[in-house]
């Protein structure tokens, strides 16, 4: 993934004085969460080559509302990178927006060299809409 992908308008970086913001808009919720992961990885690594890894992994995430689910999802990806030195590539995501649950099937690949540390995905300025599916979120760098 490279800068050209950003120009396909699935997501863009938002200015923030100290850190980074992301605005992601998509066609459906499942794709929104997929593209949020891609956007996060762009900030962390300036792109990750989406390919199947050898190690399959399922993730189950729960939130208390749509925005919280998105933050928990993205923070889980940061946690996996920090503790395992690997990147989780989601291949199929199923989002239940009634019970605020996410199920992902994907695989693990070795992490590329990071270019930027993301401490956490924050709740500050968090905004999620369901129609159209869109997410605005800020990262603490």
């Amino acid at each position, binding site marked *: 993934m490279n800068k050209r992908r950003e120009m396909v308008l699935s997501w863009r970086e938002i200015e*923030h004085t100290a850190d*980074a913001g992301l605005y992601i808009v998509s066609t459906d919720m499942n794709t929104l969460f997929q593209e949020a992961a891609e956007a996060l990885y762009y900030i962390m690594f300036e792109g990750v080559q989406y390919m199947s890894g050898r190690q399959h992994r399922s993730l189950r995430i729960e939130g208390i509302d749509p925005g919280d689910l998105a933050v928990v999802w993205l923070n889980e990806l940061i946690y996996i990178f920090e503790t395992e030195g690997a990147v989780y590539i989601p291949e199929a995501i199923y989002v239940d927006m009634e019970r605020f649950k996410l199920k992902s099937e994907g695989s693990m690949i070795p*992490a590329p060299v990071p270019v*930027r540390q993301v401490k956490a995905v924050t709740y*500050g300025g968090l905004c999620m809409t369901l129609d159209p599916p869109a997410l605005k979120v800020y990262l603490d760098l």
Partner: protein
Amino acid sequence: MREFLVKKDAFRWELSMEAEKGMRVPGFLYADNYIIEKLEEENALVQVANVACLPGIKKYSFAMPDIHWGYGFAIGGVAAFDEEDGIISPGGVGYDISCGVRLLSADLTSEEARGSLHSLTSGIFTHVPCGLGSRVAERLNRKELDNVLQEGSVWALKRGYASRDDLAATENGGCLEDADPGRVSEKAKERGKDQLGTLGSGNHFIEIQVIENVYDIEKAALLGLKRGSITVMIHCGSRGLGHQVCDDNIRAMSKVMAKYGIEVPDRQLVSVPIQSPEGRSYFGAMYSAANFAIANRQIITKRVRDVFEKIFPGRELRLVYDISHNMAHMEEHIDAKGDREKLCVHRKGATRALPPGHGSLYEPYLTTGQPVLIPGSMGTASYILTGTGRAAAECFASTCHGAGRVLSRHAARKTSDGHALRQKLEDQGISVMAGSYKTLSEETPLAYKDVDHVVDVVDRAGISCKIARLVPLAVIKG
């Protein structure tokens, strides 16, 4: 929101309670016209107003002159809450719990160090794990990690990484006693277990400096500071462990906040009563993360001293002070009626600045006031200040923490690339070693306010007292 600012004097501005519905107290900014002009976006003022809406807030929602847009609280924000009916908020501390600064002073002049500066810089760069994803080979087991979380620098003392003088020169004696490692999640411990003694990245750094100017000769002498002497400044925090503690507690509080009848204008300001089970749990976890940060800076100090000893054998590298600028403490302050009150003081990107004579200080700080360490942006000056009685009377003994950003990282990258910036600093006589030059430009001095100006504001406002100015000779960045 700027239209609600009322100038009180050359360095004090009040943000009227009419700025936002729900404000319980006014906002209060320490700033001069330059700082106000640099306040380019309204977001920081909105955050000052938002904090003023929180239950139990006392006096003002404060902003120091390095204020800029943050999460929940603005960076440079200070707010105190009543012990009985006030709240505690992880957003008022930040993800990097107990991020702070440590200053070491060498028994060495810049002239004596000149020929060995490159060796010292590259030695530190090699021996202190820094950069993205930095880890140490010696992973702590759970028991040992819990000991670090409980004891902070006391743990380091027991293992020969610190001296008693180091603990005496660290805020809170190097250990927050109310830490409770049982309140730190397994996820946080998993993140922290191989990060103790690592610098991290972003705006964290180790800098070799020289004391260029001394403003108060008497206090500087008491602190062991001499013009022309070499110093080493270390800026880092609680690493992934602290970040996870913050996230864990934001989520935990989000689930229960409504039952306490609390509503907040920004989700990052999620809060619970100080005396609630969730509040007490956060205190235990926050103090544990703070002990980790203090121990982290102590281990880095040991590594720096090892390098120093090899290059300058027999020359001491003494700890001047270690202070945090992302914390919440239970403190006693005097209210307007002269009565003592116990408050939870949140400082996010702000530093505690206790005055001379404060009961919790020991000599020489009892005479000088508590040291305040203000790192500048890359390539610019840093400062040593001390706390004052006026700060204690006005703003809960608080002051600024740095220069404060004015440009986003995105905008900063457009000003130059990392290699060009490095060359520019080298041309100024400042060596730079970094884990990655790709994002170095995000830390360009152009992205920050003028630190000389910010420090001047707190000094002339009377809430801190300038002691010495330090200039960089070499910078090590993650």
